[in-house]
């Protein structure tokens, strides 16, 4: 066994991942190799230093706060789903069964285009103002910023000062090449977080260009997340199509296998099979 391989065994030993025969080999090597003994001591010191950060349990207050926020988010998720489902149901009942699927695809596309159009028009009317300057910390808080969730830390103005936090959001108009990492970051965020499936679909399609594109590594991770978790089969399909354009690797293979074994839509399972075969 080469010296470097012993160094790897040494690390695995500290991780508690060595088989007993490997442990014996390493012990024998350590008896005759001073360099590895020094290395072992050094790594033990490092792990000891870092182990100080190991926290026993999650703080109950943080957990309670997280659960509280989650309950709110789930309520909002359910109400959005109910609205979407009732609109879809009321439209679908006018169509015979074979037309429903074709209509669903078309409806998603139209909704996506409409929302895209509305958002585009709105943002083009709201120019992005310059960044804050040193003298005026609130210069960027102009009239086009919407402020919400104002929470007071100190509302007692007896000393002339108050302290609070708030959420500020502003319409942003962004135009640029799809190769730009900032553009990709925003589209990645949208494909993961937009509540409207049409917007998620458009975000993925915007990155699916005919020309060669340099994708940020986050894009692939996001696509994998979408393929595994997005509720909308159309969004999952587009994500799968785009992911297949990336260089094939283990993560992609596992994702395709996941779709083959888990996805409820047969068309997607077939596409994953074709992707795996290719």
């Amino acid at each position: 066994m080469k010296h470097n391989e012993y160094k790897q065994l040494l690390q695995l030993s500290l991780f508690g991942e060595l088989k007993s025969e490997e442990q014996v080999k390493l012990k024998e090597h350590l008896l005759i190799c001073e360099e590895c003994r020094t290395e072992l001591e050094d790594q033990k010191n490092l792990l000891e230093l870092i182990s100080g950060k190991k926290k026993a349990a999650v703080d109950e207050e943080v957990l309670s706060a997280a659960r509280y926020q989650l309950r709110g988010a789930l309520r909002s998720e359910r109400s959005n789903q109910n609205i979407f489902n009732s609109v879809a149901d009321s439209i679908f009942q006018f169509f015979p069964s074979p037309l429903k699927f074709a209509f669903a695809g078309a409806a998603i596309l139209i909704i996506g285009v409409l929302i895209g159009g509305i958002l585009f028009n709105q943002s083009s009317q709201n120019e992005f103002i310059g960044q804050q300057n040193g003298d005026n910390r609130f210069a960027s808080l102009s009239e086009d910023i919407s402020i919400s969730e104002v929470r007071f830390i100190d509302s007692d103005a007896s000393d002339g000062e108050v302290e609070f936090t708030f959420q500020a959001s502003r319409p942003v108009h962004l135009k640029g090449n799809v190769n730009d990492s900032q553009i990709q970051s925003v589209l990645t965020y949208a494909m993961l977080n937009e509540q409207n499936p049409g917007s998620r679909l458009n975000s993925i399609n915007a990155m699916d260009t005919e020309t060669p594109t340099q994708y940020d590594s986050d894009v692939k991770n996001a696509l994998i997340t979408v393929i595994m978790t997005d509720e909308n089969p159309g969004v999952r399909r587009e994500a799968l199509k785009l992911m297949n354009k990336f260089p094939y690797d283990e993560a992609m293979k596992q994702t395709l296998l996941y779709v083959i074994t888990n996805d409820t839509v047969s068309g997607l399972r077939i596409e994953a099979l074709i992707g795996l075969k290719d």
Partner: protein
Amino acid sequence: MQLNDTDLIIQAQKGNQNAFEELVYRYDRNVLSIALKYSNNEDDAKDLYQEVFIRVYRGIKNFRFQSEFSTWLFRITTNVCLTYKSRSKEHLKVSIDKDFDDEEHEFNTTKELVYDGSTPEEISSGANLGEIVNAAVESLSPKQRMTFVLKHYEGYKIREIAEMLNCKEGTVKKYLFDATKNLRKKLSPVYA
């Protein structure tokens, strides 16, 4: 009698909200713990936690019991954490406060390790040791950081981490070796 995971999942797939909540409460400590140690920030960890379970909620109808629920859940957790950079609050805050044309501006919010020149004695007796360690861990690449957190702080086996990250055990070992190497480089002034 307490329902097992499979029963709860079937109930949740039928729209039973209580079953879904029960499922959440069985695993949410582990999810929050990973999120906290990965992000090193309570607010971000709570956002990650919420994002994970919203995705689980959206995806549970498609869950077909081909893997353990926990494997699926932790796979989502690691994926959400790994894409965390692009959705972090820093990112959103910057998009409001800074001009997109600013060429100096980067979306990467990873803190650079700032070793302030304190002696090892000062550091070991002072409060900034934890900050230096945190900054060193934060300076790792997302996958190195994730494998390091899962292995050292959460105590998962390399085989389990490979399942969560959808990769081979060899790849996990490589991330761990690289993480250790980088941490040694960054922290050697502190412990050497």
